[in-house]
């Protein structure tokens, strides 16, 4: 069992070039045991290449990394890793049951354990009734769910999920969210790569933003920084020095849309802020506050000039 604070993934300057093209420039990150870790970035930022390097599917051009304390591609470590790739592909002539049996064998699971795990997981992803149907007859959501079951066969210590909710309906998404919650409860580390920021926000403890192959920002979703509130004030006439005075309550103070906006640390700041304005005789007509969404963080971190991928 890995101690809860030890790093499960540790990379230093991991880089991958395909000819002249730099897919990942410098990936340096640490993921600790039991964390649900979000890996964010626009299309083409190098997320999938990074993930494939960590799984030993692509060799890095430079840099160092360890997964579960072992060098990249170590088979003993891979036996404790689960992986659901983006656009999960499968031999369509197999049944769901046969697919899981095959992957159980690849993990080297003994017959009894394999059978038990396959049945258990088919039930967990709600595919028991479709277990003996060919995969070619599965819907997109069913394929994604059997792919998820495949990733969990060996009761892994670390699970890589690349866009796990892609193609799933709301019920399927809820199932994935529940399973991630169960994994967290069991102390399993989850490395989640998703475009659905709402999903990430709901499930992850910490996120790292990747831009053009570089880790540009890290955010703990329980930190004061992430918990920050965006406050919008509608004020009456006030002096020019008001903005400077407001800076003591928060950051990013600016005039916008005829009002004033700033980001404060938490709700406890709001009464103080209101008192301060009233004491200075500034008419306060409206105070609206909103938690800063991951989407806002994403847009801010990625900066101007990003184009849809």
């Amino acid at each position, binding site marked *: 069992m890995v101690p809860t604070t030890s790093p499960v993934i540790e990379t230093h300057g991991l880089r991958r070039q395909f000819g002249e093209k730099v897919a990942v420039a410098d990936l340096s990150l640490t993921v600790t045991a039991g964390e649900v870790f979000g890996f964010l970035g626009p299309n083409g930022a190098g997320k999938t290449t990074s993930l*494939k390097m960590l799984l030993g599917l692509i060799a890095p051009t430079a840099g160092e990394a360890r997964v579960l304390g072992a060098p990249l591609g170590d*088979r003993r470590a*891979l036996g404790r890793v689960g992986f659901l790739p983006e656009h999960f*592909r499968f*031999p369509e002539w197999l049944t769901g049951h046969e697919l899981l049996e*095959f992957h159980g064998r*690849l993990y080297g699971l003994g017959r009894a354990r394999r059978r038990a795990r396959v049945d258990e997981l088919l039930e967990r992803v709600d595919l028991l009734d479709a277990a003996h149907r060919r995969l070619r007859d599965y819907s997109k959501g069913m394929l994604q769910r059997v792919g998820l079951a*495949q990733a969990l066969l060996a009761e892994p210590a670390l699970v890589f999920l690349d866009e796990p909710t892609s193609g799933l309906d709301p019920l399927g998404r809820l199932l994935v969210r529940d399973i991630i919650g169960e994994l967290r409860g069991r102390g399993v580390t989850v490395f989640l790569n998703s475009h659905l920021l709402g999903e990430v926000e709901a499930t992850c403890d910490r996120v790292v933003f990747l831009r053009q192959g570089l880790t540009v920002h890290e955010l703990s979703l329980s930190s004061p920084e992430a918990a920050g509130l965006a406050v919008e004030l509608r004020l009456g006439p006030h002096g020019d020095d008001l903005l400077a005075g407001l800076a003591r309550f928060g950051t990013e103070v600016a005039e916008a849309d005829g009002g004033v906006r700033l980001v404060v640390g938490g709700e406890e700041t709001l009464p103080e802020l209101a008192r301060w304005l009233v004491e200075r005789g500034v008419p306060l007509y409206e105070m609206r506050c909103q938690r800063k969404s991951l989407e806002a963080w994403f847009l801010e971190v990625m900066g101007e000039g990003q184009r849809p991928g």
Partner: protein
Amino acid sequence: MKASGRGEVMRGLLTIVRITVHEAVRRRILLAALLCGAAFLALYGTGFYFVAREMQHEAAASLLQRRLALNLLVLAGLFAVNFLSVMTAVLLPADALSGEIASGVMQTVASKPVRRSTIVLGKWAAYVLLVGGYLLLLAGGVLAIGRGLGHFTPPAAGAGLALMALECALLVTVVIACGTRFGTITNGVVVLGLHGLAFIGNWVEQIGTFVGNDAARAMGTIASLIMPSESLWQLAASRMQPAVMRELHMSPFSPASVPSPAMIVWAAGYLGIALLLGLRHFRRRAL
């Protein structure tokens, strides 16, 4: 390698062999091949029956003439088997690795605790078994028809079949090795092209020998070195006939120039090196 490591590798190898054979069965590839093979044997057997019956009534034919005619018939049957097996050896595994790499199926397989070499060796072993089985069934059928209907077995039939099996194994190996590098269609085109080169090279060599042109003969030999598959069939056919038939060039399978037995060593070495290159490339490639 420790015993547990060896056991692990064997388990992985058997898993890949099993899934590959399962695929051939489930996708009805095996069924199609067996039905075509059965149709071929039925047609061949019918033809053989009538020819053998005709010969029995031919009072003027000597025992030697009869034996030579039966030998020719059996070699003709094996020539057809050779053609069918060569096509199967190239087309059946052409999609094995390249298809799974292109579709992404390989990602979930290669991220499991199995060596990449195990994946390649498992696929290779499965296709060698499948194509070898197909060859033995068809060639065995031809020999059984010769034995049953004509009371005739060609000389050195075992050695001949072994050479034909080596030819199929060689082609499967080259296809698997190219599959680690090329896409499915490119793979099929490259290996069939190489075999075609060896086939035409053999004709150039025969004509060169016949007219006494050393340059043409040398070109044929070079083609056989580039791809020794056709030479193995030539060697097999040459062994499965009596010396008199071979020396007097009495049939299309008794050519003017027979490849050197050293070609067997060359083909075996070629197979080994192709497999090693395939293993090496697959170990390094991005998936």
